[in-house]
């Protein structure tokens, strides 16, 4: 049977003193560019650490490529590329040293491909990492990961420190890998504008819970953000209001119901960021039966 999910999570729980990640069910499709969004401290990095089995979970199951991420850890990690925000290679090494080290760690390491990316990113082979700029360090991370052609690339805020030109170049490479090679990319970032351009699928995590996880187009089609004056009598059932915020005399609501808001000013250029902001800042406990 053909597999269609790259990551499958069930009843995952990780509790810290002041925070709890709780995911009942989460399936992320294979061969897609997946965006993991959420504010700082929402649980994105915790989720990534759990995926990589870097931290102990309280309960739950995680399957990557259909395999349990604990029992098949080494096998899975051979097929995963991870890029964090910083460069973690010892500063005394240069990119040639990195090649000599990493080729022994990854079965599918391709030196030719690595050298190609070094040249493409203008990374000098014999310059020590301590002399690299922040952008160069991040580009080195990408060159390393792309060199062993992982089936899943996980990026944890990895593009945040890059200037827009390099960021676009990297995103273009990742998009190309997804579309032409059928690989999967999971990008955790707070730069949502990037994801709006490239992501096929979005998972929004808030306060340790998954708020939505769906194809980007489905999300954009299923939500409506509307703004109306407080004096307008608009009947909206409470259950249809996902979140709302007050703006002086106006109320902005996030709803899934397209009906009954004809008097309202509907945001035509609604973005994922708008939805996320309303979710994070908004409230959903008001009685909307008679505004």
């Amino acid at each position, binding site marked *: 049977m053909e597999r269609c999910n790259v990551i499958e999570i069930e009843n995952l729980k990780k509790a810290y003193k002041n925070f709890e990640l709780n995911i009942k069910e989460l399936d992320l499709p294979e061969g897609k560019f997946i965006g993991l969004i959420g504010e700082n401290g929402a649980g994105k990095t915790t989720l990534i650490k759990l995926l990589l089995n870097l931290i102990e979970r309280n309960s739950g199951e995680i399957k990557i490529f259909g395999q349990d991420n604990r029992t098949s850890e080494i096998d899975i990690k051979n097929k995963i590329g991870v890029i964090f925000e910083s460069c973690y290679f*010892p500063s005394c090494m240069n990119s040639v040293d990195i090649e000599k080290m990493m080729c022994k*760690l990854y079965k599918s390491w391709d030196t030719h491909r690595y050298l190609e990316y070094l040249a493409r990113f203008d990374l000098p082979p014999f310059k020590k990492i301590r002399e690299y700029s922040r952008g160069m360090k991040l580009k080195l991370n990408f060159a390393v990961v792309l060199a062993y052609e992982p089936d899943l690339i996980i990026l944890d805020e990895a593009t945040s420190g890059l200037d827009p030109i390099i960021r676009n170049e990297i995103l273009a490479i990742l998009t190309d890998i997804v579309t032409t090679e059928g690989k999967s990319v999971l990008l955790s970032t707070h730069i949502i504008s990037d994801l709006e351009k490239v992501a096929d699928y979005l998972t929004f995590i808030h306060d340790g819970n998954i708020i939505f996880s769906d194809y980007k187009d489905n999300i954009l089609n299923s939500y409506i953000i509307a703004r109306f004056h407080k004096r307008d009598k608009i009947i909206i059932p409470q259950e249809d209001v996902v979140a709302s915020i007050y703006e002086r005399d106006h109320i902005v609501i996030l709803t899934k119901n397209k009906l009954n808001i004809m008097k309202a000013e509907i945001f035509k250029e609604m973005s994922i960021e708008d939805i996320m902001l309303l979710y994070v800042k908004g409230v959903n406990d008001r009685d909307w039966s008679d505004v």
Partner: protein
Amino acid sequence: MIGLMYKDFKVMIDRFKPANIIAILVVSLFFILLMRGSGATFIAIILPLVVASTPVILQTSDEKSGWDKYVWAAPISKKGIIWSRYLFCLGLIAGTGLFTIIVNILTQIVFQDLPLKLHLIISIVGLLISVLYLLLLLPAVYAYGTSGNTIVSFILIAAVMFFLYAINITNLGDKFIRFVKYLLNIDIKIVCLAIGFMYMVISLFSFQLSLMVYTKKFKR
């Protein structure tokens, strides 16, 4: 595993630049010229002990770069990570031990002020003490980072002081001398086997302790 050992090698090369190594060799040569056989035996004890503190240098580098966390995302088991560090450090001490043995043999040939047997015994004792120190240091460094060195040094100094104190106030000293004499009368092969077995047990214990501490440290 070879990849990780290569990384450790590069870190050590960066730390001990050619100028540093030349300085150590010049000081060693100075000691030998000044003290002859005694200088060589002193080097046989000190040099492997200095090299035994390698885990502290490697751990500092790993913590500084964040490699100690990054390596968990690589397809290598925790056992493999620990094992590579043990192999690298033991290999480095073995290399240093071999160097001090050669230096001691050459010193004996040139100056002939101490018997060759004494040179060899002190070189091997120096090597064994350094390996023991390393086996204690590795789990301590995994548990307490760079402070592990201070903790192990403190424990060892305290143990030696207590031993000396105990010898002074009891008849333990006589018993110890009798025990050493007894050892000298036993077949050398049996002594070697006993020491080998003892070191194997300590190595296994040290490795398991390091693995336990290392796994617990990151699995929070």
